[in-house]
């Protein structure tokens, strides 16, 4: 990444998601001034932990935020989305459990080993998507439909049982909190993944290449970029993100259910990318937008539950709010807003100059 881009562009690009999150916060504060209060309490393993809606929102959105980052890159490079991330995440979980079970005791060493195995396997699976998309030029939606359909079966074959359990303080520490640290571990994982990506962006040209390929593949090739490799790379990055998210989710639950692990997360991830102001057609992108998008989605869910909306109705209410956000961020509304803004500014400038005269 090359530092800040268009001056003042950050704010205007992130305007819609920032406004959305602002309204959600305001709404919750009016509804219940104590909504965001945080307290220190003791959980059932006897550790002091921070609790409260805000912590729970940021904690629960971790897997989504991490996958949304990878999805942003794939979207930017290919102009399409990977709809198999949920199913591949289930495979990750299965691999993690199998490695831990196979190595006997759960120790820090075996967990690291398991995680590395997860990264390898997950990246292999997303690279399979990547090869179909980048090399065979299959529409991303179709290419990833394959693993979307069969990924959870593969997860089941790997574990060989419906819901293998993982019992260990290390697993709890990874999925919930580390004794002595009151903040949930997944939140640190989001920060870690974010920082690693930032480092990757700072030390390489991935942003320039990805955007360039996403906007004009032919011209990028004539400038010496290899579009196939860049697209594949985006799927590899996504693979690492899915591996981290899969492991977090498995640890959080202490078990792997091939049917429900990270279920439907692909749709939320795509939505997070879109809410973050990124074009689903590829090209320019903003990771920070997608991360914001993930938290918006989670805050929305938490808010609805806090309002004791029946679980069966939550999705409908969520849809209504999302329609509003997506329409507000649409090119039509954006253009109208910016021309309105210009007129306002011009009028004010005109009024000032008249006063001066």
């Amino acid at each position, binding site marked *: 990444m090359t530092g800040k*881009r268009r001056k003042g562009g950050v704010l205007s690009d992130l305007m819609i998601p920032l406004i959305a999150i602002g309204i959600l916060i305001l709404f919750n504060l009016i509804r219940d001034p104590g909504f965001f209060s945080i307290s220190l309490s003791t959980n059932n393993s006897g550790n002091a932990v921070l609790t409260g809606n805000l912590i729970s929102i940021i904690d629960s959105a971790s897997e989504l935020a991490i996958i949304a980052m990878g999805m942003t890159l794939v979207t930017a490079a290919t102009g399409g989305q990977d709809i198999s991330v949920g199913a591949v995440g289930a495979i990750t979980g299965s691999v993690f459990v199998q490695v831990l079970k196979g190595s006997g005791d759960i120790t820090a060493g075996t967990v690291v080993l398991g995680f590395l195995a997860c990264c390898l396997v997950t990246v292999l699976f997303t690279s399979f998507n990547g090869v179909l998309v980048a090399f065979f030029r299959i529409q991303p939606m179709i290419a990833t439909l394959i693993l979307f359909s069969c990924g959870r079966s593969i997860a089941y074959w790997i574990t060989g049982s419906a819901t293998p359990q993982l019992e260990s303080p290390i697993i709890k520490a990874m999925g919930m909190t580390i004794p002595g640290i009151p903040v949930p571990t997944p939140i640190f994982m989001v920060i870690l993944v974010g920082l690693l990506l930032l480092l990757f962006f700072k030390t390489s040209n991935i942003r320039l290449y990805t955007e*360039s390929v996403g906007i004009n593949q032919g011209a990028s090739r004539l400038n010496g970029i290899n579009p196939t490799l860049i697209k594949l790379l985006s799927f590899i990055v996504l693979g690492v993100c899915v591996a981290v998210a899969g492991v977090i989710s498995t640890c959080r639950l202490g078990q792997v259910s091939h049917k429900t692990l990270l279920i439907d997360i692909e749709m939320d991830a795509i939505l997070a990318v879109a809410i973050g102001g990124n074009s689903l057609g590829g090209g*320019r992108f903003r990771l920070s937008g997608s991360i914001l998008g993930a938290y918006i989605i989670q805050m929305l869910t938490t808010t609805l539950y806090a309002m004791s909306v029946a679980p069966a109705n939550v999705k409908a209410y969520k849809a209504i709010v999302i329609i509003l956000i997506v329409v507000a961020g649409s090119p039509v509304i954006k253009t109208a807003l910016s021309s309105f803004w210009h007129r306002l500014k011009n009028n004010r400038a005109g009024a000032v100059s008249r006063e001066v005269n």
Partner: protein
Amino acid sequence: MQDGIVLTMRGIYKSFPGVRALQNVDFTLRKGEIHALMGENGAGKSTLIKVLTGVYEKDAGEIRVEGQDGPADIRSPQDAQNIGISTVYQEITLCPNLSVAENMFIGRDKGVGVRWKDMEKKAGDLLKSLGIPARPKQQLSSCSIAVQQMVAIARAVDADCKVLILDEPTSSLDDKEVEMLFGLMRDLKSRGVGIIFVTHFLEQVYAVSDRITVLRNGELVGEFEVQSLPQVELVSAMMGHALAELSDLDKQGSSDALSGEAFYEASGLSSAEARPFDFRIAKGEVNGFTGLLGSGRSESVRAIFAADHVTGGHVKVNGKPVNISKPVQAMKAGIGYLPEDRKRDGIIADLSVRENIILALQVMKGFFHPLSRKEEEAFADEYIKTLEIKTASQETPIKSLSGGNQQKVILARWLLTHPQYLILDEPTRGIDVGTKTEIQRLVLKLAEEGMSVTFISSEIEEMLRTCSRLIVMRDRKIVGELTGDQLNQDTVMKTIAGGEQA
């Protein structure tokens, strides 16, 4: 409204953030006249047309159209169409997989049902009366580009058309097709249609127009009768300064280089698109490929840069054999390539001017060696100044620049890599006269500094002015090589046309 006048635009103003695109521009179109609208890139031609057709909303001014009481309020292209203003754009905007008749009438009928028989008959009559060589039932894609262009015009004038705007209609046509189009324009003129003709080709303006309105930097320079404005004066009106030096570029240095040491040599080079050919360029030489469209001139230079899949041949750079099968290898060997189709192969539309300038250099530096933001800004700044690129800022997306300035950005991109050999395929197409001369001058200056340049242009005159050696192609084969005294319009034409006509 005065008799015989179909359109007046008075005191038109339009600005975009940071740019005043039109300032107090007047324009008058009379019945049955062909009125050329001229100006350099960024002079405001397109903006004026877009204001007239309702694509942009004007900031101030008044438009009156014959048959309308009071000023016309045009807010969309549909509004413009309804009061008799039709536009045919440079790129053909018809549906290639529909028939000619369908293309002429689709979206025109009010109801749901279409009476195909009637439609075909009407289309047939119209085609015949306009002398367009197409059958109503023919699929549009089976017509030549020129005929497709004419069908687009037929579609435009079918409606009750008072004003017809032709935006660069000839840029993809060959000479014969241009003549056909001019025939159609003259025919429409005799029927009382007022035609606004936007083009970069000076000769065409003089061949067909009655009047010329010149814009410069968003302001009106004046309206002239064609007879009273010789070509040289037109050019200087467009550029704002006399252009005496246009013809006396000095290409002495380049011709001296001809016999020098070779920078690049290829034998039997072929690609998916180009047949095997031999080619050599010396250090500091400017040469050119010429030939009709489709003769293989672009395909040959693309093979040199490995823009198409290279299938064979031996290449030497600086006397050493090298393998160039990917663009990045060509770049590393010191070759730069400015592609023919700027929009498709050149610009990365949504990226900023800065990012577009540093792209090739960045790729050459490698994936893990990003330039610092400061370096990027310094480079961008330097080239925006040297090439006088007109842009609101470095961060402006390149797509919002005018064609000529986009081309300069791509040129900057390659100059920044400091290539030893630069291939320029139609660098001046669709570009105003001023920028054209600038680019030609730049080419000669670079050659003087030792750079080898291959230059391709459809305008032979331009090639003669810059190249000291011309490679003539016909039917995808090299048919001649001209140097020295042979470099004149006559010989080149004869060589292009072939021996039997010599």
